């Protein structure tokens, strides 16, 4: 039996009173193995790894490194125990060279910067594991994959024996992924232990020796990769379906409302976030959008709302209830309002894109209504009336609507105000992103009911969600995104969690075959 590099015993981590991110998790990592950590969004993978990386401290339980009890209170402690974590968001200084980033903050942080010896050490690590890295290249000149290489070399330079990679392949092309896996195998041969978090099952089967599965914060079990298949892993990951009993009435008549064809969106770095997405959203139904985090959900909603530039050839057509068709391509949110399209958007980032945290409820309502009146004065009375109505109807708990900054309300109450404001204009298209994230069960149900109510009024509702159980119960159809592509559109009543789970991880590797 191989020695344990890391052993977690009965780890529990809570956030606040209600959220248990990790519940009595025990996990072993052997020396010289690659362990894949698998689980749905919110299953607690990253939280668990952050406790090894020194970002969080466990509430209960012990961590053993090389068989000895370890206390990891900070990233520095984590280095000290030879654990190196590569986060999804790189921690690099853009105007520094690779070498400068690699030595930043090291012990013996005094005296002259000996660039020659650093360069030599970096070269040596690169040769040993097969990296390609130029120590003198500036970070801002690098591709995402090169930045990731710098992060990995950085932890190796610090003498890490355990590497934790949090979704390293999410940002890589298939070719870059293969290179990364080759490097990981070299590190394994060198006796390093590696934990990789990924949602892509074919990668799990490709690179790992063993798979550990978390579900809703609990440790489900582990399995040798040799003995696993995509189906068996999906079953472990999603578990048995729990019935939630959300009402799903059928609308009397359905009408095409939003026709999206060949929608392609690139981010600032030129990486495709949406790739040839086509679907139709219908008035009178809730279209669910499923996918692991970062599969293009945000870009999809923002492209429709006029916040993301689309690539040429993309089509987004809006068909009004009266049957008038118009293109939304190239429109910004104000154009959409001026065109008379009642489109409402509840964004994922409540304070960044939805509300102004330091303003009270009534001013936040006014953001949507102030243009309604001609002249230079805003209509305060109307906004006040709507604010009072939302507070009353949706049972928003707040001391007042005119003075307390909305940021001070609890997450559920903030979300009620946001949703209340967005549905007040009787939208014909209502888009929500993670509308119930962080909300308790009662508030969640209230939101579900509001969405269903809008659907019955004839709105096309687009619901981006992460809880598959809810998507299955609430939505009429579910569109599954994977890596920015549509991997399937299924009838929610006829499908299963397993099917959606498989679609979510079936990354189409067309570029590679081409």
């Amino acid at each position, binding site marked *: 039996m191989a020695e344990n590099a890391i052993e977690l015993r009965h780890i529990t981590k809570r956030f606040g009173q209600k959220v248990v991110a990790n519940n009595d998790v025990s996990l072993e990592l052997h020396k010289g193995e690659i362990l894949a950590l698998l689980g749905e969004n919110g299953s607690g993978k990253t939280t668990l790894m952050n406790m090894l990386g020194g970002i969080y401290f466990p509430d209960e339980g012990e961590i053993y490194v090389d068989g000895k009890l370890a206390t990891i209170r900070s990233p520095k402690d984590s280095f000290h125990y030879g654990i190196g974590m590569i986060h999804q968001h790189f921690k*690099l*200084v853009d105007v520094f060279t690779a070498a400068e980033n690699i030595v930043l903050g090291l012990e013996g942080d*005094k005296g002259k910067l000996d660039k020659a010896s650093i360069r030599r050490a970096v070269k040596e690590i690169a040769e040993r594991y097969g990296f390609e890295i130029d120590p003198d290249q500036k970070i801002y000149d690098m591709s995402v994959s090169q930045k990731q290489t710098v992060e990995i070399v950085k932890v190796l330079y610090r003498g890490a024996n355990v590497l934790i990679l949090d979704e390293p392949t999410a940002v890589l092309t298939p070719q870059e992924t293969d290179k990364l896996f080759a490097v990981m195998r070299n590190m394994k041969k060198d006796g390093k232990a590696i934990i990789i978090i990924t949602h892509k099952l074919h990668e799990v089967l490709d690179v790992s020796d063993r798979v550990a599965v978390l579900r809703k914060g609990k440790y489900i079990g582990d399995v040798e990769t040799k003995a696993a298949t995509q189906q068996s892993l999906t079953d472990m990951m999603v578990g048995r379906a729990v019935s939630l009993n959300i009402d799903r009435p059928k609308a009397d008549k359905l009408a095409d409302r939003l026709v999206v064809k060949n929608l392609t969106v690139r981010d600032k770095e030129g990486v495709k976030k949406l790739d040839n997405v086509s679907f139709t959203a219908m008035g009178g139904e809730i279209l669910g959008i499923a996918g692991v985090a970062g599969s293009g959900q945000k870009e999809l909603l923002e492209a429709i709302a006029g916040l993301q530039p689309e690539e040429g050839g993309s089509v987004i057509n809006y068909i009004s209830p009266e049957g008038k068709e118009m293109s939304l391509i190239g429109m910004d949110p104000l154009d959409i309002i001026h065109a008379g399209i009642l489109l409402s958007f509840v964004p994922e980032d409540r304070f960044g894109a939805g509300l102004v945290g330091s303003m009270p409820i009534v001013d936040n309502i006014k953001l949507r209504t102030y243009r309604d009146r001609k002249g230079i004065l805003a209509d305060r009375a109307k906004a006040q009336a709507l604010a009072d109505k939302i507070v009353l109807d949706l049972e928003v708990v707040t001391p007042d609507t005119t003075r307390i900054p909305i940021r001070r309300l609890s997450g559920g109450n903030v979300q009620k105000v946001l949703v209340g404001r967005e549905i007040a204009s009787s939208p014909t298209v209502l888009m929500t992103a993670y509308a119930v994230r962080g909300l308790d069960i009662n508030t969640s149900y209230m939101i579900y009911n509001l969405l269903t109510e809008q659907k019955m009024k004839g709105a096309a509702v687009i619901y981006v969600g992460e809880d598959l159980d809810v998507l299955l119960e609430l939505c009429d159809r579910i569109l599954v995104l994977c890596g920015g592509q549509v991997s399937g559109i299924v009838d929610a009543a006829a499908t299963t969690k397993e099917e959606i789970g498989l679609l979510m991880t079936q990354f189409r590797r067309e570029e590679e075959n081409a």
Partner: protein
Amino acid sequence: MNAFLSFISSFSTTLTFSITFGTVILYGALGEILTEKGGNLNLGVPGIMYIGAIASLAGSLAFQRATAGLAAGMGALYPILCVLACLAFAFAASMLAGLIFAFLTITLRTNQNVTGLTLTIFGTGIANYIGGSLGSVGTVRADVTSDAVKAYISPLVTSLDGLTDKFNLGSLLFRHGFMVYLAIVVAVLLWYFLSKTRTGLSLRAVGENTATADAAGLNINKYKYLSTCIGAGISGLGGCFYVMEYIDGLWETSATIGSLGWLAVALVIFATWKPMRCIWGAYLFGLLSWFYFLVPGLFKGSDKIFQMLPYLFTLLVLILVSLRRKPEDQPPASLGKAYFREDR
């Protein structure tokens, strides 16, 4: 020919004044670069220079009075002692002003712009209050200290002046007190510190990407406090130099220190946060401040048009830099932002 000669002579006088003003600006800008490299935008530079000025003057007066008995016994060493005391007063008082800024913005996380501007108003006010109460303006003079600050090696000056005849190169280069040359030394040291040492690298990391520096295990608050306080100390030396060399150890009530302080802030941008570029930039700013001397037919008031030149140059540099978009010429990425670890 005579007109040409008189132009040359007024040009060389102007250059000498330019070096004096340039040195004041240089101290201010070097201190501010150190501060800003740690991510703190301290707009209190003019106030800090005022505080440095009054601390050096009031401190020197008190020091000279208290140690007058020693003067005879110490001989040539006594002026040196006075100068050291003067520098220490200026540096310490300016550091204290920096400490106020650091405590407010780093620990209490107040808005840096507001805090800096407030510090400028405070520093200007307190310096003029103390300066006014020193006695009637123009009569109380820190003579020993000021003379020592202004001392230069006269054989060096006269022999070089003789060689270059009309142009007076010797006066231009060497007829300055030691603080002119000290400023250049500080600039070189600052450049070496920021670009060649590990501590400098760490400080720059704090100013560029505080969360990354934090994750790398650096003590963010230590770096920010020290860079802000030491930076303020260096800036304050500009005020000290102004009072001791340019004003001759007196207090004056014109607002020149304040306007030079703002030029120092502008110079940081002009020099794109690089100490070496600061050196010639400072003299250029000094020259531009005195440029109206060279323009014939100006009267009081219309010279102000020419005093805008440094700011116009700064605007020009801002435009050029933003057109070129070279990352190395940009301000530290976390400049002016308070850091909350929990925010990530």
